[in-house]
């Protein structure tokens, strides 16, 4: 580990904390403001009454209709891209299982990619298909977070907001302008933005090289900001056109954390106590820095097998020389702590312990900043759990932000917490015993198991990063991963919206010295510990058979 490496990590963390407040307050404005005139015209055209305050069930129904239609539309675009415009490379329609997987993947904010973008998809599919869902899936996540925030902020209220209004505002006022600014910045830094298919160059050796091009910058901006992570190119942000240098790399890392961190401030502002949001952010960053430290230390220490061969220094296998060990370790932590999944290094080639952290980040339920919106609502579910377990110890019925946590909230929180591990572990177990599943992994032994476990973890946590090594583009994996992504997304959002409805209807107990403290270091530590223990207890057996056994073997000098 080097001083520059740590300087980068700390600088990044400091910038996140600095950005969180203005962004959070900006989002609070969209959360709270009445409709603007231009907005109203749009609602009239769409036949939406913005004044309607939806019950949680109506909000959830709107959200589901919107997302299921999104999947159908994207599926159609991918199947029909052969006859649609903007197809300079004349790609045919995408294979059905792959198209379905990709449609679910982008609508659920996962962006798991079982295809190489530049060799499979037309510009139309990328722009009108994928990029549109990059915006809408991010907006859906933030909308669900807004709904849950309202649950805490309101009292004796029947409704939790209007889904259509929330989605419209987040897209129009937040994601579109911010993406435009970022896209222009990326263009200035050297990222291509063109409708041309490719450039042809003559190499130094005199050979002819076709260099894939396309509308990269516009997709890159929202891919990072919306924690989508689906790359334009197969190599994702390791590709020089998708990430030209250090500055673009820093901007990409910051834009992954920006909105998720900002939402904690939005939350604090909405419930009338900024400290409440700050505590959530502190717990997230505590877990984040812990993870980064492990990954960075493991990568910097390198591989003892390599060392025995005379290759000293950190583990550079699967890393871009441009970025090096520290930035790659940091990026890997960020991209899995959020639900982004963009990569600048091959996670398959991380040392086993270094690769354990990205996997564990996702298994914790994407609560370390997490996906835009989804990170906030997931961490709030954990907060409810932590308050319930420890809150009794102050001698009162547990309450969070003045809302009593009772049987209904407990049932829904337990569902929201069980669904992702249920998907991850049961689907991975299935893949471990059927031939179609066993055909997937490249490696054998614990590393091969890690490849399978990572894939289902990434899908159910809606991250989308790939460990690599796994041949995912088979009907078996396409369908199973799609199932994991769909249930992992909506199996959490629906109970979260139900919690929002139940909390909004409750009265609020004013805080006092007898209330359970949900600000301050004690609470931050408790929340982080509950997240770690619940996540750890759930996944430790599987992790022992994957990365931990892998590490034990590497330490013993065996390579599989």
């Amino acid at each position, binding site marked *: 580990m080097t001083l520059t490496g740590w300087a980068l990590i700390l600088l990044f963390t400091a910038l996140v904390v600095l950005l969180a407040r203005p962004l959070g307050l900006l989002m609070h404005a969209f959360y709270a403001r009445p409709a603007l005139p231009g907005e109203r015209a749009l609602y009239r055209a769409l036949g939406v009454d913005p004044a309607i305050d939806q019950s949680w069930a109506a909000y959830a129904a709107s959200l589901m209709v919107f997302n299921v239609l999104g999947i159908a539309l994207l599926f159609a675009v991918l199947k029909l891209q052969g006859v649609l415009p903007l197809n300079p490379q004349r790609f045919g329609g995408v294979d059905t299982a792959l198209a379905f997987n990709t449609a679910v993947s982008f609508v659920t904010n996962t962006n798991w990619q079982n295809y190489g973008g530049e060799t499979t998809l037309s510009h139309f599919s990328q722009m009108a298909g994928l990029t549109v869902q990059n915006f809408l899936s991010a907006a859906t996540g933030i909308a669900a977070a807004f709904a849950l925030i309202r649950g805490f902020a309101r*009292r004796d209220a029947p409704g939790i907001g209007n889904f259509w209004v929330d989605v419209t505002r987040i897209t129009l006022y937040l994601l579109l302008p911010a993406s435009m600014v970022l896209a222009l910045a990326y263009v200035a830094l050297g990222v291509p933005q063109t409708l041309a298919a490719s450039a042809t160059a003559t190499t130094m050796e005199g050979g002819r090289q076709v260099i894939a091009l396309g509308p990269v910058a516009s997709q890159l901006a929202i891919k990072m900001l919306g924690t989508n992570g689906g790359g334009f190119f197969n190599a994702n942000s390791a590709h020089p056109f998708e990430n030209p240098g250090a500055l673009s790399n820093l901007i990409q890392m910051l834009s992954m954390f920006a909105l998720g961190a900002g939402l904690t401030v939005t939350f604090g502002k909405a419930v009338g106590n900024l400290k409440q949001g700050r505590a959530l952010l502190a717990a997230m960053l505590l877990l984040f820095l812990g993870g980064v430290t492990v990954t960075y230390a493991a990568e910097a220490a390198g591989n003892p097998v390599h060392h025995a061969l005379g290759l000293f220094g950190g583990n550079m296998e699967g890393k871009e020389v441009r970025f090096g060990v520290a930035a790659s370790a940091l990026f890997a932590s960020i991209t899995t702590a959020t639900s982004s999944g963009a990569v600048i290094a091959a996670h398959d080639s991380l040392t086993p312990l270094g690769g354990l952290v990205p996997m564990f980040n996702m298994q914790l339920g994407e609560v370390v900043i997490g996906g835009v919106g989804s990170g906030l609502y997931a961490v709030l579910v954990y907060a409810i*759990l932590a308050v*319930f*377990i*420890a*809150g*009794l*110890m*102050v*001698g*009162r*019925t547990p309450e969070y932000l*003045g809302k009593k*946590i*009772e*049987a209904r909230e*407990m*049932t829904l929180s*337990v*569902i929201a*917490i*069980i669904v992702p*591990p249920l998907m991850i572990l*049961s689907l*991975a*177990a*299935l893949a*471990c*015993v059927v031939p179609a599943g*066993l055909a997937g992994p490249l490696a054998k032994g*614990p590393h091969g*198991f890690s490849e399978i476990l990572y894939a289902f973890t990434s899908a159910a946590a809606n991250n989308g990063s790939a460990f690599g090594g796994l041949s995912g583009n088979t009907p078996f994996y396409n369908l199973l991963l799609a199932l994991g992504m769909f249930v992992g997304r909506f199996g959490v959002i629906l109970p979260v919206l139900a919690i929002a409805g139940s909390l909004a209807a409750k*009265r*609020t*107990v*004013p805080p*006092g*010295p*007898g*209330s*359970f*403290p949900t600000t*301050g270091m*004690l609470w931050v530590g*408790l929340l982080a510990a509950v997240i770690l*223990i619940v996540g*750890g*207890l*759930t*996944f*430790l*057996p*599987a992790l*022992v*058979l994957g990365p*931990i*056994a892998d590490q*034990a*073997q590497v*330490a013993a000098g065996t390579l599989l």
Partner: protein
Amino acid sequence: MSSETASPTPSLFTGRLLAAAARDAMLKLDPRTLVRNPVMFVTALVATLSTVLLVKNALSGGGALAFQAQLVGWLWLTVLFGNFAEAMAEGRGKAQAAALRQTKADLVARRLVGTTGKHETVAAGLLAVGDLVLVETGELIPADGEVIAGVASVNEAAITGESAPVIREAGGDRSAVTAGTRVIADRITVRVTAAQGKGFLDRMIALVEGASRQKTPNEIALTILLAGLTLIFLIAVGTLPAFAAYAGGAIAVPVLVALFVTLIPTTISALLSAIGIAGMDRLVRFNVLAKSGRAVEAAGDIDTLLLDKTGTITIGDRQASAFLPLPGVSEAELVAVARLASLADETPEGRSIVTLAGAGPALPADAEPIMFTAQTRVSGLRIDDREIIKGAVDAVLRRLGPNSCKDAAAALTAIAETVARAGSTPLAVADGSRLLGVVQLKDIVKTGIRERFSELRRMGIRTVMITGDNPLTAASIAAESGVDDFLAEATPEDKLALIRQEQRGGKLVAMCGDGTNDAPALAQADVGVAMNTGTQAAREAGNMVDLDSDPTKLIEIVGLGKQLLMTRGALTTFSIANDVAKYFAILPAIFVVLYPGLAVLNVMRLGSPQSAILAAIIFNALIIPALVPLALKGVRYRPAPAGELLARNLAVYGLGGLAAPFIGIKLIDMAITALHLA
């Protein structure tokens, strides 16, 4: 405050109780009983499954039988220990209930027949609501009811444990009598108010026995969480065979079962109902009957305490401390008239005036006493046409009306205000239409009450003093006692309005009361403690009854409620924290066959895979009886702000829960290895 100080506590583990609990633990293996507790039910289910596998294995002559048999044995012990904990908690109540039932069975009644004054002797069980019964010196009152004629001194030791007799009389707020209590002097006629099986004694039997115990809201929520955790571990453990198959190995079913049972929260689940029963039991031994567990939980959540001034904040009776004559009136005249006005007044206040005034003439034979009523609020004597009265200043001025001299009234009001501002109560004294002066009645604030209130404030509980006094007196006593707020000249309607206002703000309110007019407020409050000396209406309206009729106890009741919730939380935290060590014991033991490098995870250096698994399951079983005393006694409780309580309990039960099993499992493993059990 602690439960030990409340009443002499029988030892937790007397031999008879232990034997009875052990027998009940076996009876509770009935699946219909077990299913009430999902985690223990699942444990019993996998124990059954393991037993079947063991028998199958034994018949087919498989290996590792001794190990497997030990596992099965400890699985069943885990279930039995859970049953035992519950049986222990119920045990003490059952003994008490048996005694009460005997009392009830022996009761006979003398029922009045018609209006003739004749009566017949019938078993108490045959009485109906509305029947009139006669009870005389030495007899037991056969049913709950209301005294409609007579006054008697009653010993209520049978239900309160307090042998000092109390007065029960017709009319007023001391008319309620309870079945099973004994009249020790005089005779009363009682109208039966409780139907068969619905009486106080019946309720008490059901309560101490735990027969009518239902899960409280918080207990239900916790059960859901525990069931959820069980489900998570079912997924985590259930997928392991597939993962192990990928690694080219297999895990024996008994081992998987052991892992599963040690991970699911058996500790807290086994103790959960014992904690609830013990919480109710602590209240019973504190001579408070809660009508539901819900009420006990609500007590822990109280934000606002409404406390009656008299008896809670000040010692019961006010004492006359000075005579303050008006200008132009001699003190001797005031003393003489005040004494005369108090001669027929048998209240402690009246007697204290007579005492302070010193010797004087006896009650004139032709005097007719003017009795105190809630409407007139004055008392005194009428001798021919001359009215000698004393009473609240405004009441006396109103009674005199325009007859009184304006200047005298103003001077009297001025003196009264000075007295009130000092925290005392002014009583005006008048002779006919002439105002003479003021008797100062001093309220004596209880020692130590100020510290109690500051403790409550630190816990975030607001105290409100309720008093019939005027605002000046109330403010002064409030300042002296350190209470947060006060409600002066309070009527029952004011109390009810105050409770509603607090509740609208999201707060939970506790109060106590005894009169019939307190009933609406008692019913409205989240915790309403009715005094046992109070009326039947009040006792019906409240959700707790204090057998000692001591309003101060409200503060302790809040503490007991908090202690119940804290015990539940502490053991939940402890139980979940335990799992970390169990993983470090069992996971390397299971997987080291597949990947020998995983031996590094065996941080406890346990003897062998089998001994590690056995040690974990034995620890998991033994921790239950080890924690039974804590579950029954409750965790240590000291009033403090939530932050402090959390920090301390997290350190003790969170960190302790992490560390304890590492030590315990290691020790058990050493014992197993030494005894060659595995």
